[in-house]
């Protein structure tokens, strides 16, 4: 399908060829300058590659924002155990759909990034852990992997460099928690995707007990550009702490939903109202979640900030995955929050008491309020359950489940009170 929307105010670096069918195959990709970065990388030392990625300031694009080069530098350099790279293509954060586009329009961009990273961290095998629901993306990706092997970009002695790398596309089977890096590693090992206690960290004991780096698709896709053009090139965009560009997956009540790439100092309000066109005709924007359902809900007057990690944090939310969800005044906030909490309750792996019991408890209370059977004491109860779920578990899914509850009670109390007082709803139909 043709790519839905382009906007002149975008800065299309990663997404330059979205919508360009000829960019998908390896020939078209090479024509467009693909795999040049890889050749350059083979002329550099491993440490040099790690340095340039570090200097670029590239931060993990899956949601945590951890500096990528720093993460790579944790890998043992002269170990006696094999190193691994796991590419996190499990994109499951509600509101996020950028990695699927990177993989189905420019799979070789990702593969090139994977090879460069694997070379830099001296991995002998790279896995792309891709969610099993991405059926169409898997088809395209498999095709690209076959092409890469056949042209000597994967396998033995890649491009005459002496470096061997095997790549396996590994399908997930429907578990959001497999997107958490240690949950992913457990799933790769043929286990339940239950997150692990850290320490030890993946760079010490990762896949199969071996040193492993886990990076998001968008992070790895940014690597060829950085290696080819240098750290300063990457830093021409964004801020000091948040350099580069990012794909924002914009969905919900927008005139023009879709993926948009902007530098990380772009204004969030302009992203929503100008690039995405704001809410549909005749509606008013009610709330925006900038980075996937795990980050706090923002009111419209909070949106005037940079989309950088520090900018959104200062405005009271988080950049997260950049999965932007827009809600206009036809939204019942109680319903929306209930749907989000339902998601976490369903996806909780169940290990930690607080998350397993708390998430489903929150969901049940919200359903009751939504049905018009809420009580005034449910509000402090929801807040206390949320407090009991935050900061007490192995992984942050528990915290994430509580986030929409806390931020919606804080900012949209009137919606809750309407349901509780007389079962009515403030949504404009």
């Amino acid at each position: 399908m043709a790519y839905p929307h382009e906007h002149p105010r975008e800065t299309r670096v990663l997404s330059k060829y979205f919508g360009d069918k000829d960019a998908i195959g390896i020939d078209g990709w090479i024509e467009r300058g693909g795999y040049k970065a890889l050749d350059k990388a083979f002329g550099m030392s491993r440490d040099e590659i790690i340095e340039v990625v570090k200097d670029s300031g590239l931060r993990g694009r899956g949601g945590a924002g951890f500096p990528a080069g720093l993460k790579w530098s944790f890998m043992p350099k002269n170990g006696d155990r094999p190193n691994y790279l796991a590419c996190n293509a499990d994109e499951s954060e509600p509101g996020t759909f950028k990695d699927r586009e990177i993989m189905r329009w420019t799979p070789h961009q990702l593969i090139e990034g994977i090879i460069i990273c694997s070379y830099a961290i001296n991995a002998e095998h790279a896995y792309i852990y891709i969610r099993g629901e991405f059926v169409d993306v898997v088809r395209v990706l498999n095709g690209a992997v076959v092409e890469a092997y056949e042209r000597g970009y994967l396998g033995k002695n890649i491009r005459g460099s002496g470096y061997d790398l095997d790549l396996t596309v590994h399908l997930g089977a429907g578990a959001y928690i497999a997107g958490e890096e240690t949950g992913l590693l457990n799933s790769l090992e043929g286990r339940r995707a239950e997150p692990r206690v850290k320490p030890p960290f993946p760079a010490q004991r990762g896949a199969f007990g071996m040193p492993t780096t886990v990076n998001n698709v968008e992070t790895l896709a940014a690597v060829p550009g950085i290696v080819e053009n240098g750290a300063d090139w990457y830093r021409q965009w964004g801020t000091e702490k948040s350099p580069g560009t990012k794909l924002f997956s914009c969905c919900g009540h927008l005139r023009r939903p879709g993926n948009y790439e902007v530098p990380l100092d772009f204004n969030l309000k302009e992203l929503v109202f100008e690039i995405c066109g704001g809410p549909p005709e005749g509606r008013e924007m009610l709330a925006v979640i900038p980075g996937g359902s795990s980050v706090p809900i923002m009111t419209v007057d909070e949106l005037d900030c940079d989309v950088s990690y520090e900018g959104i944090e200062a405005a009271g939310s988080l950049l997260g995955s950049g999965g932007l969800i827009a809600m206009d005044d036809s939204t019942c906030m109680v319903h929306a929050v209930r749907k989000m909490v339902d998601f976490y309750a369903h996806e909780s792996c169940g290990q930690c008491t607080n998350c397993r019991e708390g998430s489903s408890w929150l969901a049940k209370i919200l359903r009751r309020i939504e049905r018009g059977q809420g009580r005034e004491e449910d509000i402090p109860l929801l807040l206390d359950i949320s407090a009991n779920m935050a900061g007490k578990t192995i992984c942050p899914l528990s915290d994430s489940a509580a986030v929409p509850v806390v931020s919606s009670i804080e900012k949209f109390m009137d919606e809750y009170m309407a349901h509780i007082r007389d079962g009515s709803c403030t949504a404009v139909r």
Partner: protein
Amino acid sequence: MSDAMHPAIVSAQPSQRAETNPDAPLFEGEYHDRFEKILSRYPNKRAALLPALNLAQELRGWLSPETMARIAELLDLTPAYVRSVASFYTMFATRPVGKYLIQVCAGIGCDLCGAEDVVERLLELTETRLGEASADGKYTVMEVECLGGCGFATMVQVNDQVYEDIKAEDVEGLLKGLD
């Protein structure tokens, strides 16, 4: 499917194909070769479990206790362990499903854009209740968590076919196009 035959490719079609055989042997012929290939891509047998279950479900349509026990045998795992892993993941069907497994995204992005209406229309036209197979065994309608296509709401997946931008009025045409 040439990609499926490449030594590096351990998955060709994801599971839930329309033509399945609950008694298909695990594994013979082409599927035996694909199973061996799966084993070659991982450093131990346990790690081959997810792709192996996927392969078995592709063949048999769902993962019966007998199927899980057989996979356990092939990978030197206990049947209880295989059951534990299979039951953890939503895409592994531990109950028989209809010929067409229709999955509608229940994520917040699609919910804001009418997903509930799409589900309602699907249940109405297939004459099923959520998660149950229709009387003729043709359809099962399920709500699944965010399918990662939020900008193309509502996302619907039928077996290995993806449908984007589905509204309630598109449902009838979608169902007709399945056969």
